[in-house]
């Protein structure tokens, strides 16, 4: 336990400190931010570091075991629609809990002056992830090559990007990037690896991997479709 805390603390400092120091350096070299902004930035960085440490610890202790418990239960059932439904719900619910997704949707909501609502965006992103996690599980069951699925997803995104309203395209692409965060990645990986290890004749390595890549296609398609439908 102590070792885990040490590990996480080191990780968080490594991730946050370089840019924080960079910003403080920029402040003194080029841009003089108003003092309250700079002080709030430094306090904010401390809060972010503390928050990340608590959060990652909580993920290890609570959220990851929840995901693993459900993931290991899943392949024991032989009823495919049930498995797919659970995979969908898992993808959906981990994405809703992802902090990066909250940050993005919050920013989009603020910048768009409330015209793209927080809840709707999070919902669409989560449905996209859920759908593609279920599709990825179906792929493992059917033994369909992952390359085709990734290529199909990417081609669909490319085509859709020409039809989606231009203000939705960047948000849609960004939505694909934020889903691969600290909650989603371990839970979904555990699901995929657990699942393909139960199915005989499937290589854990090449079947378990690729899930995250597939999961990040869903939100891009979802948000673009939302743009096409709404506007």
């Amino acid at each position, binding site marked *: 336990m102590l070792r885990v805390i040490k590990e996480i603390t080191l990780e968080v400092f490594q991730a946050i400190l370089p840019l924080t120091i960079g910003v403080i350096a920029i402040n003194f070299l080029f841009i003089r931010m108003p003092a309250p902004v700079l002080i709030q930035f430094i306090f904010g960085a401390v809060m972010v570091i503390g*928050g990340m440490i608590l959060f990652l610890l*909580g993920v290890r202790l609570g*959220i990851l075991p929840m995901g693993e418990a459900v993931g290991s239960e899943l392949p024991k059932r032989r009823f495919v629609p049930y498995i797919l439904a659970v995979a969908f*719900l898992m993808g959906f619910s981990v994405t809703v809990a992802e902090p990066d997704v*909250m940050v993005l949707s919050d920013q989009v909501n603020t910048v768009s002056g409330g015209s793209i609502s927080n809840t709707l965006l999070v919902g669409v992103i989560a449905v996209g992830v859920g759908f593609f996690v279920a599709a990825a599980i179906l792929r493992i069951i059917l033994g369909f090559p992952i390359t085709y699925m990734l290529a199909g997803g990417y081609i669909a995104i490319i085509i859709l990007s020409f039809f989606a309203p231009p203000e939705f395209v960047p948000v849609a692409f960004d939505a694909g990037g934020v889903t691969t965060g600290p909650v989603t990645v371990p839970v979904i990986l555990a699901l995929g690896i657990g699942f393909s290890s139960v199915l005989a004749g499937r290589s854990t390595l090449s079947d378990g991997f690729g899930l995250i*890549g597939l999961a990040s296609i869903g939100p891009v398609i979802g948000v673009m479709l939302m743009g096409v439908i709404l506007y």
Partner: protein
Amino acid sequence: MTGLNLFQGFGDTILTVLKSVVPIVAFFVIFQLIYLRLPWRYLARIFFGVGLALAGVALFLQGVKAGFYPAGSEIGTFLGAIQAKWLLIPFGVAMGFLATFGEPAVRVLGYQVEKASGGSIRSSLILYGISVGVALFVGLGMARIVWGIPLNYIIVPGYILAVLLMFVSDKTAVAIAFDSGGVATGPMAVTFLLAVAVGITSSIEGRDPVADGFGLISLIALAPILFIMLTGLYLKIRLKRRGEQNGNG
């Protein structure tokens, strides 16, 4: 802004965070009641963990809102107002490098690749390669904002390249590459760089913060995908060439 207001709107933050875990907890509780029936001690540990995670996210989001957004938009507004707009590009390159080089997930990926390639690809190569790749892409993202280039013009060729590379790369390289898309989109990239980008677009005339301010994260996610597949391809070609030499000699 006078004085510090670190905890302004903290109630809203807490509410958002609480709502965010409702689905996963509800889902788990239903599973627990129907199938899992895990022992109480284990459950207590899990819920303690969930509580920690909630407190952590609330603190994280509040820090981002109170500290990173204002500073990010301050820097963005300043950068958007300078005359020599090209300066944004080296700035973006530096920020992209700093945000990625520290990212623990990138290091982890480096070790994974080193292991998967039997040591022929060093983890330091992955770390520097991805950091430089992201740096260039953030620079490109800044150029896009400066000249108002639609994101499509950059990301669609990138995606096409990714699809093409997919068909000439090994299956394992493809799987690792696409999973690695998220390694560089860590908390700093998503929160701080996004705020800077939005700040810049709001101070350059004729830029729409929604259409031009977003998109940076997607470029940051694309860089590692392309880099890993290119590295895999290079390794494949080198191995093949070595194999041919051995065959001839």
